[in-house]
């Protein structure tokens, strides 16, 4: 690839990314959000956060390597800490620390 082709490649990627971010606002720029979209806007976040968690774990294999044990432990610690203290940073730090401990020592 020449430099010009590389620049074009990056710009296409950037433009396409911006299109996905602006799409909803471009197509539904009217005064009032359509009823179906308002409904989706309310119930999508719960579903999307679930999807994002699965997305983060998509490459975990339960049959090989560490069998997903560090991930399961990290997530369990995160959720339990959060249910207990409701301190976002504490939950995240605790879960991550446990995960790092697992992958650096037990499953190194």
């Amino acid at each position: 690839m020449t430099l010009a082709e590389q620049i074009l490649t990056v710009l296409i990627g950037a433009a396409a990314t911006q299109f996905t971010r602006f799409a909803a606002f471009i197509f539904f720029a009217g005064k009032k959000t359509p009823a179906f979209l308002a409904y989706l806007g309310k119930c999508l976040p719960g579903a999307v956060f679930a999807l994002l968690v699965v997305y983060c774990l998509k490459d975990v294999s339960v049959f090989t390597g560490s069998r997903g044990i560090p991930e399961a432990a990290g997530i369990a610690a995160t959720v339990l800490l959060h249910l207990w203290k409701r301190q976002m940073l504490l939950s995240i730090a605790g879960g991550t620390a446990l995960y790092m401990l697992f992958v650096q020592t037990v499953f190194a």
Partner: protein
Amino acid sequence: MDNEGSNSQQDFHGGNSRCLSVLKAAFPATLPVFAGFWFLGLAYGIYMHSLGFPFWYPMCMSALIFAGSLEFVIANMLSGAFAPLQVLLISLLVNARHVFYGIAMLDRFRGLGFWRKTALIAGMCDETFAINYSAKVPQGVDKGSFMLAVTLFNYSYWVSGATLGGLFGNALSFNTRGLEFVLTAMFTVIFTQQWLKDRSRIPELTGFGCAFLCLLCLGPQNFMVPAMLLITLMLAFLRKPLSGRL
């Protein structure tokens, strides 16, 4: 628009302290992203470095594209033959989930003024959306300014991380193995908060069910777009029973 007017008046009276209180409220919310983005940004910069690109490649790409997973994909494609249509399609597919974020934010970004709204949309990556959608903004702090600060903080973490990775990547040697889990943990917490807050957990369960099903059937490379379509379809079917319970 009223919002804009009152803001400029507030800026006129005590702009600096107000600005500081916004940054003070927003910064703690972005700390996990700081850890995650510096780690992943460094990894991305190092990756580009290993492919033989100078540091300004990851710097410009992270600043212009600002979508982590796509930047890894495009980094790979830059070493191959020029394929503009392929780049376009892959970019749209990899980032299709942003359309969902836009739908969820349609009403929240209303009346924020053109430039602020444009910046908020342009910088809406997974992490920024998750924080801006779920964060409780302290009393007395303007919601629009808070969201803008979160967006700019996260953006600066990613671009600086990628640039530093491209510059000094090879010199790093401390053991950060597993640090990337910080983003998984953050999404887990935000999911937990949503779960505790929602009156009906059907959206969460629908999300999990569809995501798992598509992951099992289609594998990690191809499951996202079908999963999103399936989620939309299922939620459309559930509209009648769910409508009164959200």
